[in-house]
């Protein structure tokens, strides 16, 4: 369009004003209108697709929703028997004895992703910092290449390896050791039934909110320490029981979580590596010139610089972890009958449930509808956690945000 304008100007001799605005002087040219239309179409495709998918899922899930109601939060899932007399509820007919409780799968999805991310984020960030600060430059490229190769390994390969190689190793070595160590700790709440863990988790949350409040100066330093201690005790009380007891399978929730962590590490590490590379040299030199060590510089300068980016990357990894299907399907055991007693037992995730059930229930419309409902839950969990993550990032970025071009 600039070319067009130049040519047009060349043709108009002198400053004589045209009586009518020439084409090149109008605010919108045809080219611009076309561009706008084309970009509008392409720009709206992703949104439209999301809305379309959501609409299809909701509509397809309606029969199951009517059939089950709040029963989705039950702990038992069964597609029922298609060849016996159908069960009818709320005017919806389903296979004989069909029950659609997704609570174990929802928890399975959340727990495997949480464990995976809880391991993957520190491993990736620590690994990348070590790599960029302490590994000689010529070796960095090789390790970076390995990371990217790891990111390219198909998840079905991870699944195979997990169930055939890593799973038996866990069963023989790691899981018994872990349950032995954690079970051997002095019990804080030996008299509490395992269900009480949830109460403790609630208490832990309250303690956490207390800590947040104290950060903002509403509680005094001593209260802050107290709430940290309460948080640890309650978290221990809530979490530890799930890590003790009998080990009964090579797969199971823990093995699946660890393989998931391995799958998420390259995603987070690759982005973190870019983030670390883009920390301004000037900022790091400010610390080095004060005689701070590399370690102190990493803590004081590099980590704050990359923290928001790492959170955003973790969010990406979380999305991958929640949606990961085939590896989970292979490893986790796909047991739909109740919440596993500990993480050394088989369980299921929403995606592994869908993958494992669909083939057998294609005839049964309400079962298929229930699987769509499961997919809907997965989508909701994914969207909610994404929104939550964004809120956290905004809060973290709030005060320490680094405005571009201002002493950075």
């Amino acid at each position, binding site marked *: 369009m600039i070319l067009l304008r130049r040519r047009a100007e060349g043709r108009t001799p002198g400053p004589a004003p045209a009586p009518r605005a020439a084409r090149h002087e109008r605010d919108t040219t045809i080219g611009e209108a076309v561009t706008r239309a084309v970009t509008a179409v392409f720009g709206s495709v992703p949104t439209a697709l999301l809305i379309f998918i959501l609409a299809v899922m909701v509509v397809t899930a309606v029969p199951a929703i009517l059939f089950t109601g709040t029963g989705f939060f039950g702990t038992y899932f069964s597609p029922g028997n298609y060849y016996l007399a159908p069960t009818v509820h709320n005017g919806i007919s389903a296979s004989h004895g069909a029950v659609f409780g997704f609570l174990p799968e929802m928890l399975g999805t959340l727990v495997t992703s949480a464990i995976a991310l809880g391991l993957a984020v520190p491993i990736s960030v620590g690994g990348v910092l070590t790599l960029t600060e302490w590994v000689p430059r010529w070796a960095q490229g090789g390790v970076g290449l390995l990371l990217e190769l790891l990111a390219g390994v198909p998840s079905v390969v991870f699944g195979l390896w997990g169930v055939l190689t890593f799973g038996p190793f866990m069963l023989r070595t790691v899981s018994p050791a872990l349950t032995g160590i954690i079970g051997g700790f002095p019990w804080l709440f030996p008299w509490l039934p395992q269900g009480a863990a949830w109460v403790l988790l609630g208490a832990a949350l309250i303690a956490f909110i207390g800590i947040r409040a104290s950060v903002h100066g509403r509680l005094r330093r001593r209260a802050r320490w107290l709430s940290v201690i309460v948080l640890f005790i309650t978290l221990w009380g809530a979490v530890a029981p799930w890590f003790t007891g009998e080990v009964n399978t090579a797969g199971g929730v823990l093995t699946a979580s660890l393989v998931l962590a391995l799958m998420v590490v390259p995603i987070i590490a690759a982005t973190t590596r870019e983030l670390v590379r883009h920390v301004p040299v000037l900022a790091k*030199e*400010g610390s080095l010139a*004060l*005689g701070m060590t590399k370690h102190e510089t990493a803590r*004081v300068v590099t980590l704050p610089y990359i923290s928001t980016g790492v959170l955003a990357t973790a969010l990406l990894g979380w999305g991958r972890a929640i949606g990961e299907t085939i590896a989970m399907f292979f490893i986790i055991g796909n047991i739909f009958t109740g919440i596993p007693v500990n993480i050394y037992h088989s369980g299921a995730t929403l995606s592994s449930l869908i993958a494992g059930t669909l083939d057998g229930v294609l005839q049964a419309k309400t079962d298929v509808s229930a699987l769509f409902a499961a997919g809907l839950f997965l989508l909701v969990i994914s969207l909610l956690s994404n929104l939550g993550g964004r809120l956290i990032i905004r809060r973290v970025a709030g005060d320490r945000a680094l405005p571009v071009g*201002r*002493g*950075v």
Partner: protein
Amino acid sequence: MLTRAVGSIGVGSQVGAASVPGGVAVRDLHVLYRANELLHGVSSTFRPNAVSAIVGPTGCGKTTLLRSINRMHDSTPGMRVTGSVTVGGEDVYGRGVVVRGLRRKVGMLFQRANPFPQSIADNVSLAPLAHGTVSRHGVSALVEEHLRLVGLWDAVKDRLDRSPFHLSGGQQQLLCLARTLALSPEVLLLDEPTSALDPDTTEHIEGLIKQLSARVTVLVVTHNLAQANRIADDVLFLMAGSVVEFAPAQTFFQNPADERSRAYVSGRIG
């Protein structure tokens, strides 16, 4: 990966100014980046407790010289330093020199403000805490003392726990100065500290530099001759990696010995 060939050439007994605390002496300093020689044997003895300005055209090696003094070239692969630099009589590139300790004695301020992405108070206290020169109980006093010293206290006393990135560029540079001074350095290296700042802040910082030079040796790189004229006691004029003239400021500006200095001062080159 970092090869440094450092030959200490005749620095067994430094005489005069160089061995006094804060005295800085450079002997036959060559700095190479790969095959490029950036400094061709620079030798100068900077007076302690005085302001020495290092001036010269762009690319003449001013910053390279400055960064050799606190060994900032260490972390740049491909940089080689030969010759000797002494601070307070001690060879900076000698065996067994603790770089950490050297940089505590030799503070540095950069062209642009680079505060830590930490709170304003932590910016001042982190390095002294890391070096163990202040106890946890002494932190708030230390922070206040040095923020007052640079004249920033009144502006930030109500937001010490906030981010420094909301401050103006000049205030950020003052914070960096406070952060450096909090380690009580003997030598202060300033790399065009006011080149990105407004005239008011520049004047303020120049005043501070004059005031500080009573107890600190100041080496300031500047491309601003007027600034050198205002604050410097001595002027080192570099061209293409070699010393052209090193003279008291008055001599340098009014009656330079070298023809090139005369041309530079009068604005014919540079």
